[in-house]
């Protein structure tokens, strides 16, 4: 619930544009994962982050543990980027992931 706040809840993008999603954490977070869920429900792993930044193609993600947030940047959005993006935090103590509420991204021509 409130432990991982994800924003925005929905995002409409035109092809070729850039955008960013954000998660703020109210718990001490050791690692962050980002997923993309397709309409059938399958969760695809995008990033697994310790504090720092990773990049994969048009996606880049940062996890700042000191300021308790993570971002996912989408560059040059394509139609296949549409779906629901979730961040998930692993709290100290190694418990299961705590999910954000998701960002539904729609990319249009």
């Amino acid at each position, binding site marked *: 619930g409130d432990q991982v706040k994800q924003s925005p809840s929905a995002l409409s993008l035109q092809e070729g544009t850039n955008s960013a999603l954000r998660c703020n954490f109210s718990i001490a977070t050791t*690692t962050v994962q980002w997923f993309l869920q397709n309409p059938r*429900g*399958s969760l695809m*792993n995008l990033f*697994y982050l310790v504090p720092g930044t990773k990049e994969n193609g048009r996606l880049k993600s940062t996890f700042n543990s000191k300021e308790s947030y993570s971002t996912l940047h989408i560059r040059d959005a394509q139609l296949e980027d549409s779906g629901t993006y979730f961040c*998930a935090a692993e709290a100290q103590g190694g418990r*299961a*992931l705590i*999910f954000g*509420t998701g960002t539904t991204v729609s990319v249009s021509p």
Partner: protein
Amino acid sequence: GALVYQYPRRTICKSGTSMRMECQAVGFQATSVAWYRQSPQKTFELIALSTVNSAIKYEQNFTQEKFPISHPNLSFSSMTVLNAYLEDRGLYLCGARDLDSYEQYFGPGTRLTVL
């Protein structure tokens, strides 16, 4: 690569009956398996976390009596929804944590419909 299979993908059961779902990690050893339920509004609820050689930890609002879990080895887990009712509907996802990389991989889910 690391894959997680879930079976069945969809199931329909009558109110008051029970159904069992399975989770299989392939290509990696799973140090822990977490079961989640995703509501139609897409919010995730953690049901329980099962770690090898440790007791299964259930979250508030979920009990072993209602959602018994078996985790016999590093690659397989099953969960049963006992005496299912309408509020148990949803997509049940299992996430398995890789023993080596600590990254968590999810199966495609079992979608439960209760009539």
